[in-house]
Protein backbone atom coordinates (compact mmCIF):
# COMPACT_ATOMS: atom_id res chain seq x y z
CA UNK A 1 0.00 0.00 0.00
CA UNK A 2 1.48 3.40 -0.93
CA UNK A 3 2.16 6.06 1.67
CA UNK A 4 -0.71 8.12 0.29
CA UNK A 5 -3.06 5.16 0.69
CA UNK A 6 -1.86 4.58 4.24
CA UNK A 7 -2.51 8.20 5.11
CA UNK A 8 -5.99 8.05 3.64
CA UNK A 9 -6.62 4.77 5.50
CA UNK A 10 -6.06 6.67 8.76
CA UNK A 11 -8.41 9.43 7.65
CA UNK A 12 -10.95 6.77 6.67
CA UNK A 13 -10.75 5.07 10.07
CA UNK A 14 -11.16 8.40 11.81
CA UNK A 15 -14.20 9.53 9.84
CA UNK A 16 -16.10 6.49 8.58
CA UNK A 17 -18.29 6.27 11.69
CA UNK A 18 -18.87 10.01 11.87
CA UNK A 19 -19.82 10.43 8.23
CA UNK A 20 -22.01 7.32 8.21
CA UNK A 21 -23.84 8.51 11.33
CA UNK A 22 -24.27 12.00 9.89
CA UNK A 23 -25.76 10.60 6.68
CA UNK A 24 -27.83 7.89 8.37
CA UNK A 25 -29.55 10.38 10.66
CA UNK A 26 -30.60 12.34 7.61
CA UNK A 27 -31.77 9.54 5.35
CA UNK A 28 -32.84 6.94 7.95
CA UNK A 29 -32.04 3.96 5.76
CA UNK A 30 -29.02 1.75 6.18
CA UNK A 31 -28.75 1.01 2.47
CA UNK A 32 -28.99 4.63 1.37
CA UNK A 33 -26.60 5.73 4.12
CA UNK A 34 -24.08 3.12 2.98
CA UNK A 35 -24.47 4.16 -0.64
CA UNK A 36 -24.00 7.86 0.08
CA UNK A 37 -21.14 7.27 2.53
CA UNK A 38 -19.34 5.14 -0.10
CA UNK A 39 -19.61 7.98 -2.59
CA UNK A 40 -18.36 10.50 -0.03
CA UNK A 41 -15.19 8.52 0.65
CA UNK A 42 -14.61 7.72 -3.01
CA UNK A 43 -14.82 11.40 -3.86
CA UNK A 44 -12.72 12.23 -0.81
CA UNK A 45 -10.02 9.78 -1.87
CA UNK A 46 -9.98 11.09 -5.44
CA UNK A 47 -9.58 14.64 -4.14
CA UNK A 48 -6.93 13.56 -1.64
CA UNK A 49 -4.89 11.87 -4.36
CA UNK A 50 -4.89 15.11 -6.34
CA UNK A 51 -4.16 17.29 -3.30
CA UNK A 52 -2.90 15.49 -0.18
CA UNK A 53 -2.49 18.87 1.49
CA UNK A 54 -6.23 19.43 2.07
CA UNK A 55 -6.19 21.30 5.37
CA UNK A 56 -9.32 20.08 7.11
CA UNK A 57 -10.18 16.67 5.73
CA UNK A 58 -13.06 16.25 8.19
CA UNK A 59 -14.73 19.46 7.07
CA UNK A 60 -14.12 18.46 3.46
CA UNK A 61 -15.77 15.05 3.91
CA UNK A 62 -18.72 16.57 5.77
CA UNK A 63 -19.16 19.06 2.95
CA UNK A 64 -19.28 16.25 0.38
CA UNK A 65 -21.73 14.38 2.61
CA UNK A 66 -24.01 17.42 2.90
CA UNK A 67 -24.00 17.88 -0.87
CA UNK A 68 -24.62 14.20 -1.53
CA UNK A 69 -27.51 14.03 0.92
CA UNK A 70 -29.02 17.11 -0.74
CA UNK A 71 -28.51 15.49 -4.16
CA UNK A 72 -30.16 12.32 -2.91
CA UNK A 73 -33.28 14.20 -1.84
CA UNK A 74 -33.25 16.27 -5.02
CA UNK A 75 -32.90 13.19 -7.25
CA UNK A 76 -35.51 11.18 -5.40
CA UNK A 77 -37.86 14.17 -5.30
CA UNK A 78 -38.35 13.73 -1.58
CA UNK A 79 -38.58 16.36 1.09
CA UNK A 80 -35.70 16.07 3.50
CA UNK A 81 -37.80 15.95 6.63
CA UNK A 82 -39.31 12.64 7.63
CA UNK A 83 -42.46 12.60 9.68
CA UNK A 84 -42.04 10.67 12.92
CA UNK A 85 -45.29 8.87 12.03
CA UNK A 86 -43.74 7.61 8.84
CA UNK A 87 -40.67 6.22 10.57
CA UNK A 88 -41.71 2.59 10.90
CA UNK A 89 -42.18 2.48 7.11
CA UNK A 90 -39.09 4.55 6.41
CA UNK A 91 -36.86 2.45 8.63
CA UNK A 92 -34.71 -0.16 7.01
CA UNK A 93 -35.87 -3.68 7.91
CA UNK A 94 -32.32 -4.96 8.18
CA UNK A 95 -31.46 -2.55 10.97
CA UNK A 96 -34.75 -2.74 12.77
CA UNK A 97 -33.92 -5.53 15.20
CA UNK A 98 -30.52 -4.06 15.86
CA UNK A 99 -31.90 -0.57 16.41
CA UNK A 100 -34.51 -1.89 18.78
CA UNK A 101 -31.80 -3.66 20.72
CA UNK A 102 -29.61 -0.56 20.87
CA UNK A 103 -32.10 2.25 21.46
CA UNK A 104 -34.92 2.74 23.88
CA UNK A 105 -38.19 4.32 22.84
CA UNK A 106 -37.15 7.81 23.96
CA UNK A 107 -34.01 7.77 21.87
CA UNK A 108 -35.99 6.45 18.91
CA UNK A 109 -38.36 9.39 19.25
CA UNK A 110 -35.46 11.84 19.46
CA UNK A 111 -33.98 10.32 16.32
CA UNK A 112 -37.28 10.77 14.49
CA UNK A 113 -37.69 14.32 15.78
CA UNK A 114 -34.15 15.20 14.74
CA UNK A 115 -34.91 14.02 11.20
CA UNK A 116 -37.86 16.42 11.09
CA UNK A 117 -35.77 19.53 11.83
CA UNK A 118 -34.34 22.04 9.37
CA UNK A 119 -31.16 20.84 7.74
CA UNK A 120 -28.97 23.49 9.40
CA UNK A 121 -30.32 22.60 12.84
CA UNK A 122 -29.77 18.90 12.24
CA UNK A 123 -26.17 19.58 11.19
CA UNK A 124 -25.18 21.65 14.22
CA UNK A 125 -26.92 19.35 16.72
CA UNK A 126 -25.22 16.28 15.26
CA UNK A 127 -21.79 17.92 15.23
CA UNK A 128 -22.09 19.53 18.65
CA UNK A 129 -23.78 16.79 20.68
CA UNK A 130 -22.93 13.59 18.83
CA UNK A 131 -19.47 14.36 17.52
CA UNK A 132 -18.44 16.64 20.43
CA UNK A 133 -17.23 19.29 18.02
CA UNK A 134 -16.67 22.71 19.66
CA UNK A 135 -18.82 25.59 18.37
CA UNK A 136 -15.65 27.27 17.03
CA UNK A 137 -14.81 24.27 14.87
CA UNK A 138 -18.36 24.08 13.51
CA UNK A 139 -18.14 27.81 12.82
CA UNK A 140 -14.96 27.35 10.76
CA UNK A 141 -16.55 24.47 8.91
CA UNK A 142 -19.70 26.28 7.87
CA UNK A 143 -18.12 29.72 7.54
CA UNK A 144 -20.21 31.47 10.21
CA UNK A 145 -19.21 33.24 13.44
CA UNK A 146 -19.02 31.05 16.54
CA UNK A 147 -21.73 33.17 18.20
CA UNK A 148 -24.10 32.42 15.34
CA UNK A 149 -23.37 28.71 15.70
CA UNK A 150 -24.21 28.82 19.41
CA UNK A 151 -27.52 30.49 18.59
CA UNK A 152 -28.19 27.81 15.97
CA UNK A 153 -27.47 25.08 18.53
CA UNK A 154 -29.81 26.71 21.03
CA UNK A 155 -32.58 27.15 18.45
CA UNK A 156 -32.03 23.63 17.15
CA UNK A 157 -32.47 22.21 20.62
CA UNK A 158 -35.66 24.21 21.14
CA UNK A 159 -36.98 23.05 17.77
CA UNK A 160 -36.16 19.47 18.74
CA UNK A 161 -38.04 19.88 22.01
CA UNK A 162 -41.05 21.31 20.15
CA UNK A 163 -40.98 18.46 17.65
CA UNK A 164 -40.99 15.95 20.49
CA UNK A 165 -43.81 17.73 22.28
CA UNK A 166 -45.90 17.78 19.11
CA UNK A 167 -45.30 14.09 18.70
CA UNK A 168 -46.30 13.39 22.29
Amino acid at each position, binding site marked *: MSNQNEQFALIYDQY*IGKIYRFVYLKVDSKEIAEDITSKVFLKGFEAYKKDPGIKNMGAFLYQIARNDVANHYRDSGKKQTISPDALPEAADDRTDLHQKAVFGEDVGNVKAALASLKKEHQDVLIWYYLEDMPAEEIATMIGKPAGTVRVMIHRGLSALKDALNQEG
Partner: protein
Amino acid sequence: MTEQELINSLKELKNINPSKPWAFSLKMQILEQKNAPLPVQHRVLNMLGSIFNTGYHNKLAYAFAAFLLVAMGFVGVLGTGSLPFADKSVAVLSPDFVIKSRVETLKEKSEYLTSAVKSNQPETILVAVKEVKDAAKKLTDSIAQNPSKAKEVALDMKNNKTYFDISAGFEVKQASDELYKIIDEQMIRDLEQTTLTEEQKISFDEAKGLFEQEEYAQALEKILTISN
Protein backbone atom coordinates in the same frame (compact mmCIF):
# COMPACT_ATOMS: atom_id res chain seq x y z
CA MET B 1 -38.39 15.44 28.91
CA THR B 2 -36.00 17.97 30.44
CA GLU B 3 -33.32 19.64 28.34
CA GLN B 4 -30.62 17.51 29.97
CA GLU B 5 -32.58 14.33 29.25
CA LEU B 6 -33.00 15.47 25.68
CA ILE B 7 -29.26 16.06 25.34
CA ASN B 8 -28.55 12.66 26.88
CA SER B 9 -30.89 11.00 24.39
CA LEU B 10 -29.19 12.87 21.56
CA LYS B 11 -25.81 11.66 22.76
CA GLU B 12 -27.07 8.08 22.73
CA LEU B 13 -27.35 8.40 18.96
CA LYS B 14 -23.56 8.12 18.98
CA ASN B 15 -24.21 4.38 19.12
CA ILE B 16 -25.22 4.43 15.46
CA ASN B 17 -22.31 2.89 13.62
CA PRO B 18 -21.79 1.36 10.20
CA SER B 19 -21.54 -2.41 10.02
CA LYS B 20 -17.91 -3.42 10.43
CA PRO B 21 -17.79 -5.80 7.43
CA TRP B 22 -19.27 -3.11 5.20
CA ALA B 23 -16.84 -0.46 6.47
CA PHE B 24 -13.92 -2.83 6.06
CA SER B 25 -15.01 -3.89 2.59
CA LEU B 26 -15.44 -0.26 1.47
CA LYS B 27 -11.99 0.64 2.80
CA MET B 28 -10.41 -2.24 0.89
CA GLN B 29 -12.31 -1.27 -2.25
CA ILE B 30 -11.20 2.33 -2.07
CA LEU B 31 -7.58 1.64 -1.23
CA GLU B 32 -6.93 -1.49 -3.26
CA GLN B 33 -8.60 -0.71 -6.55
CA LYS B 34 -7.24 1.70 -9.05
CA ASN B 35 -10.68 2.53 -10.39
CA ALA B 36 -13.55 3.65 -8.25
CA PRO B 37 -15.77 0.65 -7.55
CA LEU B 38 -18.93 2.12 -9.00
CA PRO B 39 -21.60 -0.34 -9.99
CA VAL B 40 -21.44 -1.24 -13.67
CA GLN B 41 -24.77 0.47 -14.32
CA HIS B 42 -23.37 3.76 -12.99
CA ARG B 43 -20.23 3.40 -15.06
CA VAL B 44 -22.21 2.84 -18.25
CA LEU B 45 -24.50 5.78 -17.48
CA ASN B 46 -21.57 8.03 -16.56
CA MET B 47 -19.70 7.13 -19.73
CA LEU B 48 -22.68 7.76 -21.95
CA GLY B 49 -23.61 10.85 -19.98
CA SER B 50 -20.22 12.33 -20.77
CA ILE B 51 -20.40 11.38 -24.44
CA PHE B 52 -23.87 12.78 -24.95
CA ASN B 53 -23.49 15.79 -22.79
CA THR B 54 -26.27 18.11 -23.90
CA GLY B 55 -30.00 18.50 -24.38
CA TYR B 56 -32.01 15.74 -25.94
CA HIS B 57 -28.91 13.65 -26.43
CA ASN B 58 -29.19 12.70 -22.77
CA LYS B 59 -32.41 10.89 -23.49
CA LEU B 60 -30.73 9.02 -26.29
CA ALA B 61 -27.79 8.19 -24.03
CA TYR B 62 -29.98 6.86 -21.26
CA ALA B 63 -32.10 4.88 -23.72
CA PHE B 64 -28.95 3.35 -25.14
CA ALA B 65 -27.63 2.69 -21.63
CA ALA B 66 -30.90 0.99 -20.74
CA PHE B 67 -30.55 -1.14 -23.85
CA LEU B 68 -26.97 -2.07 -22.89
CA LEU B 69 -28.00 -3.00 -19.36
CA VAL B 70 -30.86 -5.15 -20.63
CA ALA B 71 -28.48 -6.77 -23.10
CA MET B 72 -25.90 -7.41 -20.36
CA GLY B 73 -28.57 -8.83 -18.10
CA PHE B 74 -29.67 -11.09 -20.93
CA VAL B 75 -26.11 -12.26 -21.41
CA GLY B 76 -25.96 -12.99 -17.69
CA VAL B 77 -29.21 -14.96 -17.79
CA LEU B 78 -27.87 -17.08 -20.61
CA GLY B 79 -24.95 -17.91 -18.36
CA THR B 80 -22.20 -17.06 -20.82
CA GLY B 81 -19.61 -16.86 -18.07
CA SER B 82 -16.81 -17.32 -20.58
CA LEU B 83 -17.08 -13.74 -21.76
CA PRO B 84 -14.00 -11.80 -20.67
CA PHE B 85 -15.89 -9.25 -18.56
CA ALA B 86 -18.38 -11.67 -17.03
CA ASP B 87 -16.49 -12.47 -13.83
CA LYS B 88 -14.51 -9.30 -13.42
CA SER B 89 -16.18 -8.32 -10.15
CA VAL B 90 -15.34 -11.71 -8.68
CA ALA B 91 -11.82 -11.70 -10.06
CA VAL B 92 -10.82 -8.54 -8.14
CA LEU B 93 -11.58 -10.16 -4.78
CA SER B 94 -8.35 -11.80 -3.68
CA PRO B 95 -8.56 -14.80 -1.29
CA ASP B 96 -6.85 -12.61 1.30
CA PHE B 97 -9.57 -9.99 0.97
CA VAL B 98 -12.35 -12.59 1.13
CA ILE B 99 -10.96 -14.16 4.29
CA LYS B 100 -10.37 -10.82 6.03
CA SER B 101 -13.84 -9.74 5.11
CA ARG B 102 -15.35 -12.98 6.43
CA VAL B 103 -13.37 -12.71 9.65
CA GLU B 104 -14.77 -9.22 10.17
CA THR B 105 -18.29 -10.46 9.43
CA LEU B 106 -17.94 -13.24 11.97
CA LYS B 107 -16.66 -10.82 14.60
CA GLU B 108 -19.56 -8.47 14.02
CA LYS B 109 -22.16 -11.23 14.08
CA SER B 110 -20.67 -12.65 17.27
CA GLU B 111 -20.78 -9.26 18.96
CA TYR B 112 -24.38 -8.85 17.84
CA LEU B 113 -25.27 -12.26 19.24
CA THR B 114 -23.53 -11.45 22.52
CA SER B 115 -25.57 -8.25 22.89
CA ALA B 116 -28.76 -10.13 21.98
CA VAL B 117 -28.02 -12.79 24.61
CA LYS B 118 -27.26 -10.10 27.21
CA SER B 119 -30.51 -8.26 26.51
CA ASN B 120 -32.36 -11.60 26.57
CA GLN B 121 -34.42 -11.10 23.39
CA PRO B 122 -35.37 -14.58 22.13
CA GLU B 123 -36.49 -13.37 18.69
CA THR B 124 -33.25 -11.45 18.11
CA ILE B 125 -31.16 -14.32 19.46
CA LEU B 126 -32.67 -16.71 16.90
CA VAL B 127 -31.77 -14.37 14.03
CA ALA B 128 -28.30 -13.72 15.48
CA VAL B 129 -27.55 -17.43 15.98
CA LYS B 130 -28.33 -18.12 12.35
CA GLU B 131 -26.13 -15.22 11.25
CA VAL B 132 -23.19 -16.44 13.37
CA LYS B 133 -23.62 -19.97 12.00
CA ASP B 134 -23.67 -18.71 8.41
CA ALA B 135 -20.65 -16.46 8.98
CA ALA B 136 -18.68 -19.29 10.62
CA LYS B 137 -19.57 -21.65 7.78
CA LYS B 138 -18.41 -19.16 5.15
CA LEU B 139 -15.13 -18.57 6.95
CA THR B 140 -14.63 -22.33 7.36
CA ASP B 141 -15.16 -22.79 3.60
CA SER B 142 -12.70 -20.00 2.82
CA ILE B 143 -10.01 -21.54 5.02
CA ALA B 144 -10.65 -24.94 3.45
CA GLN B 145 -9.91 -23.33 0.08
CA ASN B 146 -6.88 -21.37 1.38
CA PRO B 147 -5.34 -23.39 4.22
CA SER B 148 -2.29 -21.13 4.28
CA LYS B 149 -4.48 -18.47 5.89
CA ALA B 150 -5.38 -20.70 8.86
CA LYS B 151 -2.63 -19.37 11.10
CA GLU B 152 -3.50 -15.75 10.36
CA VAL B 153 -7.13 -16.37 11.33
CA ALA B 154 -6.07 -18.33 14.41
CA LEU B 155 -3.94 -15.43 15.63
CA ASP B 156 -6.77 -13.03 15.00
CA MET B 157 -9.06 -15.27 17.02
CA LYS B 158 -6.57 -15.32 19.84
CA ASN B 159 -6.28 -11.54 19.86
CA ASN B 160 -10.03 -10.93 19.62
CA LYS B 161 -11.86 -12.80 22.29
CA THR B 162 -15.22 -11.76 20.86
CA TYR B 163 -15.29 -14.84 18.67
CA PHE B 164 -17.67 -17.39 20.07
CA ASP B 165 -17.23 -15.92 23.52
CA ILE B 166 -20.89 -16.67 23.84
CA SER B 167 -23.14 -19.20 25.46
CA ALA B 168 -25.71 -19.46 22.72
CA GLY B 169 -26.39 -23.15 22.50
CA PHE B 170 -25.53 -26.19 20.49
CA GLU B 171 -25.87 -24.71 17.00
CA VAL B 172 -23.20 -22.07 17.51
CA LYS B 173 -20.95 -24.60 19.29
CA GLN B 174 -21.24 -26.91 16.28
CA ALA B 175 -20.40 -24.13 13.80
CA SER B 176 -17.50 -22.89 15.90
CA ASP B 177 -16.16 -26.44 16.31
CA GLU B 178 -16.10 -26.90 12.55
CA LEU B 179 -14.15 -23.68 12.17
CA TYR B 180 -11.69 -24.55 14.95
CA LYS B 181 -11.30 -28.06 13.54
CA ILE B 182 -10.23 -26.94 10.09
CA ILE B 183 -7.78 -24.41 11.55
CA ASP B 184 -6.38 -27.05 13.93
CA GLU B 185 -5.89 -29.54 11.09
CA GLN B 186 -3.90 -27.11 9.02
CA MET B 187 -1.81 -25.88 11.92
CA ILE B 188 -1.04 -29.44 13.03
CA ARG B 189 0.11 -30.21 9.49
CA ASP B 190 2.34 -27.10 9.56
CA LEU B 191 3.82 -27.95 12.95
CA GLU B 192 4.58 -31.50 11.81
CA GLN B 193 6.91 -29.96 9.23
CA THR B 194 8.60 -27.79 11.84
CA THR B 195 11.51 -28.57 14.14
CA LEU B 196 10.25 -28.25 17.71
CA THR B 197 12.02 -28.03 21.05
CA GLU B 198 11.37 -30.79 23.59
CA GLU B 199 9.01 -28.52 25.49
CA GLN B 200 7.13 -27.64 22.31
CA LYS B 201 6.89 -31.33 21.38
CA ILE B 202 5.14 -32.05 24.69
CA SER B 203 2.65 -29.22 24.09
CA PHE B 204 2.15 -30.41 20.54
CA ASP B 205 1.32 -33.93 21.72
CA GLU B 206 -1.15 -32.47 24.20
CA ALA B 207 -2.72 -30.39 21.43
CA LYS B 208 -3.08 -33.46 19.21
CA GLY B 209 -4.65 -35.31 22.13
CA LEU B 210 -7.20 -32.54 22.60
CA PHE B 211 -7.90 -32.56 18.88
CA GLU B 212 -8.55 -36.31 18.91
CA GLN B 213 -10.96 -35.80 21.81
CA GLU B 214 -12.75 -33.23 19.63
CA GLU B 215 -11.83 -30.40 22.01
CA TYR B 216 -11.00 -28.21 19.05
CA ALA B 217 -11.00 -24.81 20.77
CA GLN B 218 -8.69 -26.00 23.53
CA ALA B 219 -6.47 -27.72 20.96
CA LEU B 220 -6.14 -24.43 19.11
CA GLU B 221 -5.19 -22.59 22.28
CA LYS B 222 -2.48 -25.14 22.93
CA ILE B 223 -1.24 -24.95 19.33
CA LEU B 224 -1.00 -21.20 19.53
CA THR B 225 1.26 -21.44 22.56
CA ILE B 226 3.65 -23.47 20.41
CA SER B 227 3.57 -21.52 17.19
CA ASN B 228 4.13 -18.14 18.82
